[in-house]
């Protein structure tokens, strides 16, 4: 209780500190985590000043650094952040905690609202309000070696997960592994990719999201999907695949040691990038495979929002509007490896099309198809999801590496889901 007072005292003290500097009110503090878009944005600070007369101090930090600091900054009400990187996966949690302020009026007042891709924008529509503007919409994709598949007699990539297993088996060798996918435990690691298989086989997290949140992970469908995932990673993956994260998946592919991968567009894009991959000329892009229950590409949306205690929301919104404008997105799409833009007009821009077609003619089309197939709640949009996802991910990983049987893993994960939700 004394600590409650302490924190209040702290906020009061900090409030006075920060009201001393209104002279710099037009200098916006923007905190983002590192990805091609944010790195590109940081280089456009001068453009923002030219466009609005305000200045912005754009700080880009590593994702882990960001995640570990940001909630403390919010809780401490340091009040020094005007614009914040807002991943969809965190939005519900942040709203519940009262850390964000809605940007609904601003969004509805925008002339170019219609231009923003509806899926990503609606991901930020919670309780009737918009809480951020999207700048990044990543979906799932397959990248594969045409030469390796052709040598085994496959002229086209597998269309279903079952076929993928068959192809992986046929092409797997000591030099080139058949397939890899993220397996490291984590909400954003194995739990970013595994639901692609789970949902394709009809598995689900809850009985009837969002109406009935009874955990329903432990089902025959999810078990079938998990067995397929385990089979792929352990039998056709590169050595050590059971601990692979995105960086190992990308690096294996870039080193020419991988025939197929299914991951986010940003990983697929790296595996076909001639600047990074030794086998770029052999690489091709394909849709995420289907299962008995259809196709369910992964989706991850990132946007920028305004902290609840930001001192000057109007100025903050101007920044957000500028940062997600057609002009800014186009510039970054051309300057950075950033095909995950969130405006239709950027996708129609001839220069942008030319750039990404020169790398791979199918890339942009496949991306749009996958975005259309992806469901918004691919990973459930719940305040508890980060914790739930982490717990499930640990059991899935334990099953992959033989620490638990698949049945045990699903049962244990379901129990833990119930415990977390009961709190």
């Amino acid at each position, binding site marked *: 209780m004394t*600590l409650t007072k302490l924190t209040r005292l702290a906020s009061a003290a900090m409030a006075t500190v920060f009201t001393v500097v209104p002279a710099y009110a037009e200098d916006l503090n923007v905190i983002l985590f590192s990805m091609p878009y944010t790195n590109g944005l940081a280089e456009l600070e001068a453009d923002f000043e030219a466009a609005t007369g305000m200045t912005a101090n754009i700080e880009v930090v590593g994702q882990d650094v960001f995640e570990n600091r940001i909630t403390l900054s919010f809780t401490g009400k340091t009040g020094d952040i005007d614009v914040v990187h807002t991943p969809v996966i965190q939005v519900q949690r942040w709203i*519940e905690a009262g850390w964000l302020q809605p940007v609904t009026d601003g969004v509805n007042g925008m002339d170019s609202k219609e231009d923003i891709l509806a899926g990503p924008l609606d991901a930020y529509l919670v309780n009737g309000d918009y809480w951020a503007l999207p700048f990044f919409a990543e979906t799932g994709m397959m990248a594969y070696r045409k030469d390796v598949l052709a040598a085994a007699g496959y002229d086209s990539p597998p269309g279903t997960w079952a076929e993928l297993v068959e192809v992986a088996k046929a092409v797997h060798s000591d030099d080139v592994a058949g397939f890899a996918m993220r397996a*490291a435990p984590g909400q954003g690691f194995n739990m970013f990719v595994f639901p692609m298989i789970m949902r394709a086989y009809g598995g689900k997290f809850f009985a009837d999201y969002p109406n009935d949140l009874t955990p329903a992970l432990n089902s025959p469908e999810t078990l079938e999907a998990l067995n397929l995932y385990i089979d792929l990673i352990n039998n056709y993956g590169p*050595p*050590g695949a059971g*601990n692979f994260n995105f960086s190992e998946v990308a690096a294996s592919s870039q080193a020419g040691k991988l025939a197929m991968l299914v991951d986010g567009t940003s990983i697929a894009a790296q595996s076909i990038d001639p600047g990074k991959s030794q086998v770029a000329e052999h690489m091709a892009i394909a849709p995420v495979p289907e299962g008995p229950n259809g196709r369910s590409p992964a989706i991850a949306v990132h946007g920028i929002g305004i902290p609840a205690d930001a001192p000057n929301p109007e100025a903050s919104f101007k920044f957000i509007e500028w940062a997600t404008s057609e002009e800014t997105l186009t510039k970054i799409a051309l300057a950075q490896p950033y095909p995950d833009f969130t405006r239709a007009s950027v996708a129609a821009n001839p220069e942008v099309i030319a750039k990404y077609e020169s790398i791979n003619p199918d890339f942009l089309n496949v991306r749009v198809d996958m975005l259309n197939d992806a469901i918004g709640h691919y990973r459930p949009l719940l305040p508890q999801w980060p914790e739930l996802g982490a717990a499930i991910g640990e059991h899935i990983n334990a099953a992959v590496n033989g620490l638990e049987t698949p049945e045990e893993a699903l049962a244990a994960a379901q129990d833990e889901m119930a415990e977390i939700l009961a709190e």
Partner: protein
Amino acid sequence: MNQISGVQPVLQRSYRLMLLPAVIAVLVFAVLPLVGMFVLSFTGFDLVKGWDTGFTFDNFTKLASDKRFINSVWVMLALSVFGVIAQVIAGTLIAVGLEKIIPRWRHVRGFFVVPFVVPHVAVALVWLSLFTPTLSPINAFFDLFGITIPAFLTTRWGAISAIVIADTWASFPFVMLLILAALQGISTDLDEAASIDGATKMQVFWRITLPLLKPALLMVALFRFIETIKHFPLIYVMTNGGPGRATQATNYYAFIQTFQNSKVSYGAAIAVFLFIFAAIISFWVARMNARLSDA
């Protein structure tokens, strides 16, 4: 002694004055936050849900039945015990080797210290790549001869070994430096006398050097043990606590609860457990140390 007994009270006062700044610094920067940690562990503070003020034992009752927590204690003990053993053996062998086997290669010494100054984050990333079979030059090298090195990070004991190896790499120089310093305190007369008596170098090492090194070894093992229970970047970067939860040590678990799950109070309760664990270990060590210095 009698001559200065008159100045003793003055002396003692100046000793106390000398201690004062250290006491104040420790109170402000360490004891105050530690008190905060205890306070937090008896409340319900969740970064997302806010303060649930009022005194509660809930965090501790929950701890007792938390399987993840109990698992984390075993993981911590495994990492610490194996890590300390490996580091002390490697560091001592290298120190003794530098002194006895290659005393003339003085410039080599610097190379052995280098790992110590590499930040642990970088240590973790470099060893992660060395332990990833498709990326590791070690695997690539052995592949030339058709030998396949198993993947370490996908099995329980493999992942624990990998962390122990990376930690040993980063920390053996610490052991080595302290043992080197201790070796210099040991007179070479004994060695010489023993070798004149016909003892082999090995016998001299086992019968004379090692017993004399015992206090230093104990001390260095203790210091390393202290550091290993605070393991963080290696687990965070190399395994994310995996496979499954096989490398989720207690300190890492406290981090997960505090930062990933926002359960600050629960994280604090885990930290309080670690603190009590540390208090018991350090009490035991302090008593041992007092006996050693009395002897």
